[in-house]
């Protein structure tokens, strides 16, 4: 456990990997190198309280920049890794530096999926993925102005909530027939649509955006059905794609993400990978997955660090996610993909909190818990312990969910 570990990337996985390497006994050099100009920061607040102006760049840092140095971790920011030479175990940086590594960790993350819309490059049009993106958005926020958000996924909805909170007029355009269509049941989509409409967001579904026209400041979003929406600010949130190019170019296995095993090892024994960029096996789900979440980044990074320190602990955890919008805390346990039944606990039409349980063949796959933290925690345990609960029981509000675990 001597020599230099180079961690490519400065996101959540990278920051956790550095910390876990030190804790698990790596005594050699640890170098984090990433393109972004600042120390690792938390990405989730970007579409929530950082966008809303309630937090500063300093207080979304995962830890203060000085904390890396004080634990012997070198941080090289604003530097891009151009290539990896696996034969000589060297990486080349965009400033001409060549660095050797004993072990390499790829935490290259993901980037905003480009939208095929004409005029995307206009001023005042932003993706929402990085701190720089959101600083650009914040400079265009004004209570008397209007915003159009393209994409009704979590990023789009969270941004809509933040901008409404700042008094902007917000229109949200979604290509599919409902918001959150890729990740939620129609019942959950309906709930979020209702709440956003109550909060004053103009949600339009089944709308394909073709062009953004820019007429000196005010922009117009033109859709395929001829509808036009004027906006001072446009935010595009149509998903992310994993950054796999470095891995691909040096011949590592890549298949919808950098292919790793349950110990976060790539096809090269000296290279591990963790986070949004990986495609990994999950025995609990019985298949390989690529996940886009902070918990996945951090927990897989811990496994990767353990692997490098000869303390192998397989990464086998049920996925979970969260999303904060207005006074709604959504916590999601499991992956709902492939469900054939949805059971609701609590009323989605009146209250601001309920649970949607997702089942397949009577077996629990996932739960969307809105302002229901206890059910969320129970759902995680039900999944981990493969416990079955009858649908009628899941729906029964008179039963304390705690009883299902005994």
């Amino acid at each position, binding site marked *: 456990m001597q020599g230099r570990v180079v961690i490519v990337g400065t996101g959540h996985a990278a920051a*956790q990997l*550095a*910390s*876990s390497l*030190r*804790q*698990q006994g790596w005594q050699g050099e640890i170098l984090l190198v990433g393109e972004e100009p600042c120390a690792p920061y*938390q990405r*989730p*607040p970007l579409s929530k309280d950082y966008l809303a102006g309630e937090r500063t760049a300093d207080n*979304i840092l*995962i*830890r*203060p920049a000085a*904390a890396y140095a004080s*634990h012997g971790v070198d941080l090289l920011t604003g530097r891009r890794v151009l290539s990896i030479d696996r034969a000589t175990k060297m990486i080349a940086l965009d400033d001409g530096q060549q660095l050797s590594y004993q072990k390499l960790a790829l935490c290259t993350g993901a980037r905003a999926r480009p939208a095929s819309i004409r005029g995307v490059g206009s001023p005042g049009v932003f993706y929402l993925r990085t701190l720089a993106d959101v600083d650009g958005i914040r400079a265009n926020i004004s209570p008397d102005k209007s915003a159009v958000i393209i994409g009704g996924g979590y990023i789009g909805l969270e941004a809509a909530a933040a901008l409404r909170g700042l008094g902007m007029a917000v229109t949200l355009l979604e290509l599919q027939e409902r918001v959150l269509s890729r990740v939620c049941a129609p019942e959950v989509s309906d709930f979020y649509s209702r709440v956003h409409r109550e909060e004053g967001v103009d949600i339009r579904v089944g709308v394909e955006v073709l062009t953004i026209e820019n007429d000196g400041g005010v922009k117009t979003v033109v859709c395929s059905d001829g509808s036009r929406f004027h906006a001072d600010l446009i935010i595009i949130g149509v998903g992310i794609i994993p950054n796999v190019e470095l891995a691909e170019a040096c011949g590592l296995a890549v298949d919808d993400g950098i292919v790793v095993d349950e110990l976060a090892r790539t096809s090269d024994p000296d290279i591990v990978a963790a986070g949004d960029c990986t495609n990994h096996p999950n025995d609990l789900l019985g298949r390989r997955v690529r996940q886009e979440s*902070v*918990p996945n980044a*951090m*927990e897989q990074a*811990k496994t990767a660090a353990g692997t490098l320190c000869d303390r192998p602990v397989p990464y086998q*955890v049920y996925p*979970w996610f*969260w999303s*904060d919008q207005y006074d709604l*805390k959504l*916590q999601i346990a499991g992956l709902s993909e492939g469900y054939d039944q949805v059971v609701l606990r609590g009323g989605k039409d009146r209250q601001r909190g309920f649970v949607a349980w997702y089942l397949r063949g009577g077996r629990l796959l996932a739960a969307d818990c809105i302002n229901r*933290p*206890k059910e*969320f*925690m*129970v759902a*995680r*345990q039900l999944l981990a312990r493969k416990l079955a609960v009858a649908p009628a029981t899941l729906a029964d509000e008179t039963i304390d969910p*705690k009883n299902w*675990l005994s």
Partner: protein
Amino acid sequence: MPLIHYVEANGAEYEAEVPVGESVMQGAVDNMIDGILGECGGVCSCATCHCYVDEDWFDKVGPPEGSEQLMLEMVPDPEPTSRLSCQIKVTAELDGLIVRLPVSQY
């Protein structure tokens, strides 16, 4: 600056100076203490910053409330002095606080 003592499940002990106003979770993350994850960044969504407050300190720290309490009922291995450390704000009065960390956060 208040000194917080973190005791990992394997017995490893760490001391960290944590500024007043910062959370006990953030103090662990800042100091690369791995027994606390804090995946959600401190918004009480994940319960991966579970700790056991030393009994002598529990009165000063106080009990959990609201969603923290509901989540703590369901964490692995809860105890009467369990707290989510992101919800414990460090004050001058907590100088010397001892928290023990669970075997696993998930």
